[in-house]
């Protein structure tokens, strides 16, 4: 048997303090950009929002004036929200699917720090991408409409509000996707749940008795989105109570925070 030698002189000095959110955010930033699914999802997001916006506005460019051309320009956001949701889901579900999460938790055992760092990266990227996308979508769509009766000026009342809040909406949906997957861990189940919450639930509720529609509709993410990326609420909301765009976004932020907090709590309770 070897004898116990003198204490090893470690070659790396240990810094003071402890590993925390700052380190976790830089590591999660690296992880976010070093898998292919990130660029695929972002390309899908780009094509869906801008492409659909062009297609939808092209028809308008020769016709009579529309009440809310912004809604036509932003029609792609209804699809784009799925791409960013999937991106949010995969950001953590892929770690569970591949076993990577065990490596992650071995270098940062505090679950809340891992979830917090992922939320900061996902929220930050979602916000920047969302804002860039919403401005690009607007200017591209508006270029298609230029000279037509439906043309909207950048400075027209409400336009800037739509541009800023649409980006914010996408960022929040990315966080909701992340939150769902933090709880469910499974990619397919999380994507299905996200799609269910955004699409299926909306259809389901609209087929319900009036009192349910009145009570629930305004809380559904897709309906909040309908008010966010438009100058005015769609006609079908005329008889249904809706949140103002800003209140709607606050509701979505509450969803995201609750889901992420619940996921973080469950992670520290469950075996990995």
């Amino acid at each position, binding site marked *: *048997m070897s004898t116990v030698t003198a204490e090893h002189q470690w070659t790396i000095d240990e810094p003071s303090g402890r590993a925390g959110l700052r380190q976790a955010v830089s590591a999660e930033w690296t*992880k976010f950009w070093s898998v292919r699914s990130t660029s695929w999802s972002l390309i899908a997001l780009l094509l869906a929002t801008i492409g659909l916006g062009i297609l939808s506005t092209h028809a308008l460019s020769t016709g009579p004036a529309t009440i809310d051309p912004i809604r036509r320009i932003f029609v792609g956001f209804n699809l784009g929200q799925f791409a960013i949701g999937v991106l949010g889901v995969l950001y953590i579900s892929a770690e569970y699917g591949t076993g990577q999460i065990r490596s992650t938790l*071995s270098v940062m055992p505090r679950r809340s720090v891992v979830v917090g760092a992922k939320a900061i990266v996902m929220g930050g990227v979602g916000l920047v991408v969302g804002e860039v996308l919403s401005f690009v979508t607007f200017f591209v769509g508006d270029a298609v409409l230029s000279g037509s009766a439906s043309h909207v000026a950048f400075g027209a009342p409400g336009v800037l509000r739509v541009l800023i809040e649409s980006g914010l909406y996408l960022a929040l949906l990315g966080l909701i996707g992340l939150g769902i997957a933090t709880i469910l861990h499974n990619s397919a189940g999380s994507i299905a749940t996200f799609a269910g919450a955004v699409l299926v639930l909306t259809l389901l509720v609209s087929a319900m008795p009036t009192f349910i529609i009145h009570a629930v509709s305004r809380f559904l993410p897709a309906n909040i989105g309908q008010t966010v990326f438009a100058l005015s609420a769609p006609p079908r909301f005329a008889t249904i109570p809706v949140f103002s765009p800003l209140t709607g976004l606050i509701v979505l932020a509450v969803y995201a925070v609750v889901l992420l907090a619940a996921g973080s709590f469950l992670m520290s309770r469950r075996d990995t």
Partner: protein
Amino acid sequence: MIEARGLSKRFGDVLAVDDLTFDVQPGRVTGFLGPNGSGKSTTMAMIMGLDHATSGSVKILGKQYHELRWPLREVGALLEARAIHPGRSARSHLWSLAQYNSIPKTRVDEVLDRVGLIDVANKRVGKFSLGMGQRLGIAAALLGDPAVVLLDEPVNGLDPEGIRWTRTLCKSLAAEGRTVFLSSHLMAEMALTADQLVVIGKGRLIAEMPVAEFVAHSTGNSYRVRVSSPEALMTVLEGANGEVVLSADGSLLVSGLDAKTIGDLALSLGVAVYELTAQASLEDAFMEMTGSSVEYRGVS
């Protein structure tokens, strides 16, 4: 160092780890030995804070895992082969782990070089062979220059050269004063690598002793002896209270006497000794110890 105290883990009706108490000391290689399914990986996961103990506790460097200030600088672990996203390059994977603990980027290439993966640093991990994956896991364990190294079945999937490399690495890590704890279901490999053994079966502690003692325990009970005149020696050995069986091939199976006595008696008799080998192998001792605790047994 690692201290397990009454560590237990229940999955439904199955008690996967049952009241384990053991210590793992720095400066030597401690082998964690047990058949497949005996609870080694679950114990490792509890040390790492990945699984929660049903009862009991385990401390590493005097702390619970989540209390470590810079986990990767204090504990390096190779978990089951692939705890890695296959879409990332080896370098990105290690760099993200390093960032979590403020470890400089230069260290990533240092460990990649040490495990021989520097030439494939930018290759996606999904394209790696099992052996390369194991080396990458070992690289991750070494990233933070940790005081404690945990390796769960590190030689799985490695070629003979890789196995030897891992053995040498473990010994040198221990010689540097680190605590090295490695699990395996391969007794022979453990006998070559480890100084100390923690043996479990069906989640229960079976033995905790130095390898040398384990070896002494398990050999010397029985010898195969080939000599020029077996019948003559047989009579003498039986006269010395040995139990002797004459095999069909003319060799003797002797128990109850040590090798020295057998050799001396042969010399005094003037017979030539062609072979004098201990029969009980380490594998046999291991099987004997854990035999009643193997959960899934094949029929032969």
